[in-house]
């Protein structure tokens, strides 16, 4: 099933990856039938090929190729202006590439889906600046993020079930905000807001998490805790982390991609990348 963004207002299909049991090629008997969930037959959850984005002639991304495996924890590093945030914008549908292919799993064409469809399909994003709903309580923030029917009518009639409450409590516990559950999110510290946003991602239960500088402004203890959390998440989810803090990258990543001027400069383990001549030249600095 290839889902495309429609012009029909409010009638965009809600994508249920779980119901999409390997249609298209599988339906006519080519290839093996995919199991439940997103079709990730070839082990890649995200496929970016030849992606280019230009703003008024400036090429923010230049023929970029990137593949992220199922359950992988990938770190993206690169100097300022290397295109890291643009890359996230392309994946989440905020920016359209001028050319190139972007596939989520085997069947969902990200370049033709709206931001909302992409989020519903299972890609969660954490912003660089922690963005939470400041006027709502921590509990309510998590409630809104929870994976459920998010249409207008459903929201008018929604009641929190016991199971959903338990899930929220569980996440509150994970992000260590149980004591602040009823506080307005606007009153949290910077680090707590970062955790709340990560908690909201967990509630969404996405298959792919994009995290833009998740440990910026965190204390050492908080950073360490975040690293642990991410390592626990990898495997069940796929993570793509953009980060400047090399210590943090070293503590979590099994695989690092270096971006430079909108394309991939090097890929490999952190040690390999750090030894790469070109990387040393442009990024790690002389």
């Amino acid at each position, binding site marked *: 099933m290839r889902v495309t963004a429609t012009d029909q*207002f*409010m009638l*965009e299909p809600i994508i249920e990856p779980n119901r999409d049991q390997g249609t298209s090629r599988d339906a006519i008997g080519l290839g093996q039938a995919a199991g439940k969930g997103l079709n990730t037959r070839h082990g890649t959850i995200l496929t970016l090929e030849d992606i280019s984005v230009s703003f008024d002639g400036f090429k923010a991304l230049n023929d970029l190729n990137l593949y992220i495996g199922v359950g992988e924890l990938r770190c993206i590093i690169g100097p300022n202006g290397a295109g890291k945030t643009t890359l996230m914008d392309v994946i*989440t549908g905020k920016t359209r590439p001028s050319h190139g292919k972007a596939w989520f799993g085997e069947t969902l064409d990200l370049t033709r889906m*709206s*931001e*909302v469809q992409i*989020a*519903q399909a299972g890609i*969660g*994003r954490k*912003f660089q600046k922690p*963005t*939470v*709903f*400041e*006027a*709502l309580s921590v509990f*309510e923030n998590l*409630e*809104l*993020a929870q*994976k459920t029917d*998010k*249409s*207008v009518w459903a*929201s*008018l*009639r*929604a009641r929190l079930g016991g199971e959903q409450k338990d899930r929220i409590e569980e996440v509150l516990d994970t992000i260590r905000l149980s004591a602040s559950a009823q506080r307005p999110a606007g009153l949290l510290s910077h680090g707590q807001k970062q955790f709340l946003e990560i908690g*909201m991602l967990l509630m*969404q239960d996405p298959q792919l998490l994009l995290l833009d500088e998740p440990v910026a402004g965190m204390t050492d203890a908080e950073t360490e805790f975040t690293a642990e959390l991410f390592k626990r998440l990898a495997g069940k989810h796929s993570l793509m982390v953009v980060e400047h803090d090399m210590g943090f990258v070293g503590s979590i990543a099994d695989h690092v991609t270096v971006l430079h001027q909108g394309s991939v400069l090097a890929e490999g383990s952190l040690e390999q990348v750090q030894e790469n001549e070109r990387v040393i030249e442009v990024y790690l600095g002389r």
Partner: protein
Amino acid sequence: MNQPLMLTAAQKAGPKVTIAVGAVILAVLLALPLLSLLPAESAFHVSAYTLTLVGKILCYAIVALALDLVWGYAGMLSLGHGLFFALGGYAMGMYLMRQAAGSELPAFMTFLSWTELPWYWVGTEHFLWALCLVVLAPGLLALVFGFFAFRSRIKGVYFSIMTQALTFAGMLLFFRNETGFGGNNGFTNFRSILGFGITEPGTRAVLFLATVLLLVGSLFIGWRLARSKFGRVLTALRDAENRLMFCGYDPRGFKLFVWVLSAVLCGLAGALYVPQVGIINPSEMSPTNSIEAAVWVALGGRGTLIGPLLGAGVVNGMKSWFTVAFPEYWLFFLGALFIIVTLYLPKGIIGLLKKRGEQ
């Protein structure tokens, strides 16, 4: 005025007293029309002037509440809500004009030497169809405008300017005689509604009661919305729309729903305003009217349900006193009020009361 004091006490004493104060105010509002039916010699008699004035303010309070739903909760400042109010008023006015004209054409059409009704007047002699128009005219306009505005992601000050332009365009359109709504004179000289004389005390009392009911109904809808997940989504939309989209909500549907609901409430308020005040003309669509509505909401307190009602009551109460005592200075005073609220009372009267209550 002892109302704010009572409210301060209410804040201190918790919800029980708030409910009690609300019940007292409701009881007074329900008693007013009954008292107006007493003979004029009675000490408790309420004059038709007072009843009309309070009824008018209640209509404005409904507008304030409707505007607060889109501005205070969803963060979209509309400077064109007067248009929806006037459209509801005009729809009701059409029926009242047909009642007054009987089997003839409405008087202003005869002056223009028109010989038949324009197509959009068809059926307006029926009260029920007029009621449908009261809902449909503002509702459909809001739906179409909102559909395109939200699809194009028009937000913030651009949205406000567009709503302002919309009501201005509406005013210019209705000023034209050829539009078929009485030009700059609008509709007046109403005689009867559903066969009852429009100036009779009984009719006035019923209209007033209907206004109170609509206000209570609007409050109830607002309360249910604010407490539902829908209300929390609106608040989230106001504070971080991008975050909400990446959570998987489509903001357009949420905005459109509350926008159309708000417009329909305004239309209903307008429909009750016209028979009580006895006139509707295009000046109701003037941009200043819509801006004034925003002042009520800002003064009372955005994002609360009681705030806008309080704001509409206080400003209009002062307005009717000021325009009698110092007619030249009212607009200066209104401007000063808006500046003071913006600078010193960002959360309005309600914010002030809450602060007092906490201390």
